[in-house]
C-alpha cells in the first residue's frame, strides 16, 4: 500500500538540476498538478524528457514559460513558440528525437535493454548526430537508453498499491516512462481500493510506482 502524499511533498524530493520524464502528448495525459507543484516549489535548471512541450504556458509549456528548464529532449516543439524561441536564442538546449525512437529509448532504459536499433533517421541530420552500426547484415541507427532521475506520470485510475490504468490517447509515453525513472511519481484522475481494477486492465504495476499523489 502506498502512503498518500501531496504534490508538494512529492516535488520536495526533486532537486534543482534533476532530469525528469513527463508523460503526455500536447497536454493529454500530462500530470498537471505535479507540474504546478514544481513551479510553486521554485525548481529550476531541469532537464525534461517529454514528447512535446505542450503549448505556450500550457501543460509542460508552463515549465518553459516560467524558465525552469535548461535542457529539453523531445520529438516535437512546433506547438510551442516559446520553446522554439529559446532554442533559436540558445538560452535553452533542445535535442529533437524522432517520436518512435524517443519512445523506445525510454522503454529500453526501463526494460534493461542496451538501446534502440532503428531505420528511422538514416540518411538524415539525425543519423549525422548519432551512431550508425551494421548488425545482422544491415545498417541501423543506434540510440542509447534514456533514463531519468524522476518520472512524472498521469494515470486515469490508480489503486492504493499504485497499479495504473490509462484512458484513450492519454497512454502515450506514460507506460514506458513509469519504468524508466529512478523515482516514479504518479498522479491519477481517480484512486480506487485494491482489487477494484481487474488484473487484465492494469497497464503499469504498482510495484514500480514509488509515490502516488493524494487526490486534489
Amino acid at each position: 500500500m502506498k502512503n498518500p502524499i501531496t504534490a508538494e511533498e512529492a516535488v520536495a524530493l526533486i532537486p534543482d538540476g534533476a532530469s525528469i520524464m513527463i508523460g503526455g502528448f500536447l497536454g493529454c495525459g500530462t500530470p498537471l498538478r505535479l507540474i504546478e507543484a514544481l513551479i510553486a516549489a521554485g525548481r529550476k535548471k531541469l532537464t525534461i524528457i517529454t514528447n512535446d512541450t505542450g503549448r505556450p504556458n500550457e501543460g509542460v509549456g508552463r515549465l518553459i514559460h516560467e524558465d525552469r528548464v535548461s535542457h529539453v529532449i523531445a520529438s516535437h516543439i512546433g506547438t510551442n513558440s516559446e520553446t522554439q524561441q529559446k532554442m533559436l536564442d540558445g538560452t535553452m538546449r533542445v535535442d529533437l528525437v524522432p517520436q518512435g525512437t524517443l519512445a523506445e529509448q525510454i522503454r529500453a532504459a526501463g526494460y534493461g535493454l542496451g538501446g534502440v536499433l532503428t531505420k528511422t533517421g538514416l540518411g538524415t541530420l539525425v543519423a549525422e548526430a548519432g551512431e550508425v552500426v551494421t548488425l545482422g547484415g544491415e545498417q541501423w541507427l543506434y540510440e542509447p537508453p534514456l533514463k531519468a532521475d524522476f518520472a512524472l506520470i498521469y494515470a486515469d485510475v490508480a489503486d492504493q498499491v499504485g497499479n495504473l490504468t490509462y484512458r484513450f490517447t492519454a497512454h502515450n509515453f506514460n507506460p514506458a516512462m513509469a519504468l524508466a525513472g529512478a523515482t516514479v511519481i504518479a498522479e491519477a484522475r481517480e484512486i480506487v481500493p485494491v482489487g477494484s481494477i481487474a488484473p487484465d486492465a492494469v497497464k503499469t504495476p504498482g510495484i514500480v510506482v514509488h509515490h502516488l499523489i493524494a487526490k486534489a
Partner: protein
Amino acid sequence: MSKDIILRRTARELRPNTLVNLGIGLPTGVANYVRPESGIFFQSENGLVGLGPRAVAGFENRALTDAGGGFATAVPGAMSIDSNLSFGLIRGGHVDTTVLGGLQVDEAGHLANWIVPGKMVPGMGGAMDLVACANRVIVAMQHTARGAFKIVPKCTLPLTADRRVTLIITEMAVIEPTEAGLILRERAPGVSIEQIREATEAVLIVDGEVAEMNLAA
C-alpha cells in the same frame, strides 16, 4: 477546388482493410472521402487505431485527442495504444499507407517536410518514422508554394528520410518517383502536361499515356 482534387485522388489510393496514417493539416481531410465499409482504420500516432471525426462541441473527452491535440472521436472497434505500440505499428510496416504534406520532394523521391533550418524548428515528431517505415508514403500537397517550386531536382531542405516516397499527389498531377526519376502518371481535369512542367522544377518523365485523374468516390 484544388484541395478537393488532392483529397479525392488520394482517397482512391487507400487499400481496403488496412491501417492508414494521415498527417496533420491537409492530409487529415482524406478521411472524409473514405467510405466506412472500406474496412480502413485510421491511426492517430499519439495513441489510437480507429480515429473518428473531430468531437462535436459538448461531447469532447480530454483523454481523446488527435495528433494535433484536437478533441477527437473513436470508431467502433477502435483500440487505445501507447506510443511504443503506435510506433511499432509504423516501424514494423503495419501501417499500409501514410499520407503527409511536404515542403519539398525531389527527383530521387526524397521528401523534406520537418525543418527549415534557422527559421522553423518544429521537430520531426512522428514524420521520420512514418516516412522511413510505412509500407507506402503518399505526399499530398499543393503543387507549388505561392509560386515557389516544391517538386525540385534535389531537396535543399534537410530530408525526412532517405527512402523514396511512393507517390506525389497534387491539385495538378499524380507523380510516381522511380529509380529512373519522377514519372508523370496523371493530370488533373483540364490541366495540360505543359502546365504541370511549368509548375515543376524537377524533370518529369512522360512514359506512355498521361491519363486524366479519376476522381470518383
